[in-house]
């Protein structure tokens, strides 16, 4: 079985349905909290230092609203451009994985991501942050907390 065949079988994807997005921004809130140390909304927003970052971005240009996060590209430009080898494509899950321990924070991935989905972390950590599909929780936090099911988690095969 080829790598691309395997990927097609197992890969899951977050799909955005623009027609039902209300632009509430809860996806950003829950993403940030999910990636905080405290997992508590108030603490995550007001007390944690370095500040946790949301890896999903709500964009508003009324009447249109949209959210953007890593699309786990088939041929990811960020992986190609990564100076340190921190960014890689996991063949089994199909995810583009960012290894923060190996990240030099050079921001080269930021300049080549067509979606602008990689966030520079301007805190003392000097690295970047991206959607990890909430690998620890099973279902991405933005999806489970979207009140209007504008974000859905589906098999992308």
């Amino acid at each position: 079985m080829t790598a691309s065949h395997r990927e097609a079988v197992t890969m899951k994807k977050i799909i955005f349905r623009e027609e039902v997005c209300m632009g509430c921004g809860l996806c950003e809130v829950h993403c940030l909290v999910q990636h905080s140390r405290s997992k508590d909304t108030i603490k995550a927003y007001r007390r944690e230092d370095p500040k946790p970052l949301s890896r999903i971005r709500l964009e508003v240009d009324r009447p249109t609203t949209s959210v953007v996060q890593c699309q786990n590209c088939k041929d990811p430009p960020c992986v190609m451009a990564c100076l340190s080898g921190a960014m890689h494509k996991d063949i089994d899950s199909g995810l583009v994985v960012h290894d923060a321990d190996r990240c030099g924070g050079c921001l080269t991935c930021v300049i080549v991501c067509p979606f602008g989905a990689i966030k520079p972390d301007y805190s003392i950590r000097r690295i970047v942050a991206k959607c990890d599909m909430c690998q620890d929780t099973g279902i991405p936090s933005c999806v489970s907390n979207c009140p209007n099911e504008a974000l859905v988690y589906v098999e992308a095969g």
Partner: protein
Amino acid sequence: MPKYVIVGGSAGAVGAIEAIREVDADGTITVISEEAPPAYSRPMIGEFLSVDASMRKLAYRSEGFWQQNRVETIVRKKAVGVDLAGRCVKLDGGEKVYFERLLIASGSRPVIVKVKGIEKDGVFTFTTLADASILKERIARSRRAVVVGGGLIGVYAADALSDLGVETTIVELRERILSLLLDQVASEIVKTRIQEKGVDVITGHSVQQILGKQDDESEVGAVVLDDGRVIACDIVVMAVGVRPRIELVQGTGINVNVGIVVDRFMRTNMPDVYACGDAAEAYDFILNDNRVLPQWPTAYEGGRIAGYNMAGKEVQYPGGTLMSALKYFDVPVAAAGLTDPRGDDRCEVLSSLDPLTSTYKKVVVKDDKVVGFILVNDIEKAGILFYLMSKGVNIAGFKEKLVSNTFGLISLPAKIRNRMLEESFRG
């Protein structure tokens, strides 16, 4: 006889090996490298210097990379010549390595300005891990440094040195630092920040001479500028640029301009000989011409393209262009393409500057296409601009949004957004 021989063991070689192995699982690969594996990331040597980053962090690929890809490595050897008729690479020890297909990924070397006193102990370059290692030893007994050159390498070195508490001065010949990448406004923002961090920046001047110490003439003690100014220092870092390493192919009939000239398949004019990376002069999609582009991602991508074609899978190089993201002195900058189009009146410049936060956005447009941009301090959307630029998307319908604070994917027509999603999925 190894099927594939690669001269050089850095980004270009890694790209080529990964591509070759996607196509050809069995063909033997030999890499000739002056350095010893594992493949480390040269653009991260500053982290080695300033925060003592471990080899795990510096490693570009895992330690097992060569073995996993069944690559024979000839390390700490220098390739000194290519014999095209005999189809072999000659090494400095007199050995010959025969090839069916050859990739020259020999990189570049720093330019050393031959000023008086250059031979003194305490003059360094800053492009390899070996450079960083000996510099690190030296820093332990040094208080002051002069960095000659205010380009990417110079500013990077100054950032690392100042992090270590070394009193640092940058001396740049041109009127502004980072002049190849940034325009006046962006360069000024970065310069102001560098100065705030206590690093001196002198532009429009050059170092004319390096003086010795009073008690030891052989050691660096000061530099003299063209206006007679004397700056005391214990270290001089030479960072005035790099030049392709092309000696290997000179006199072989392989076409060389500034670098080794390659076509859109990374082929030289000689059969079965390819080149990539800092040593090569390859296609730039903004210039619509070949140029030397000494950038890590460009070397990796060029290596990949070379690898595919060497292994028999025809893949065309889309071309690279000048592009860099910087984080030096904690000012995030992203810039690419034609960033300072003065003199080209067919170009239109869109820009916005928030003086309070030093947030600067500039997009250069020509014939309704993005041909360059600079973002300072808010660079998250840089990749969207890079996409529009590299795909030559017609931006006439949303031009005015490109430098607005709310610019995002949503600023693009739905048709383009959908195409992007589809492309990301299909590859």
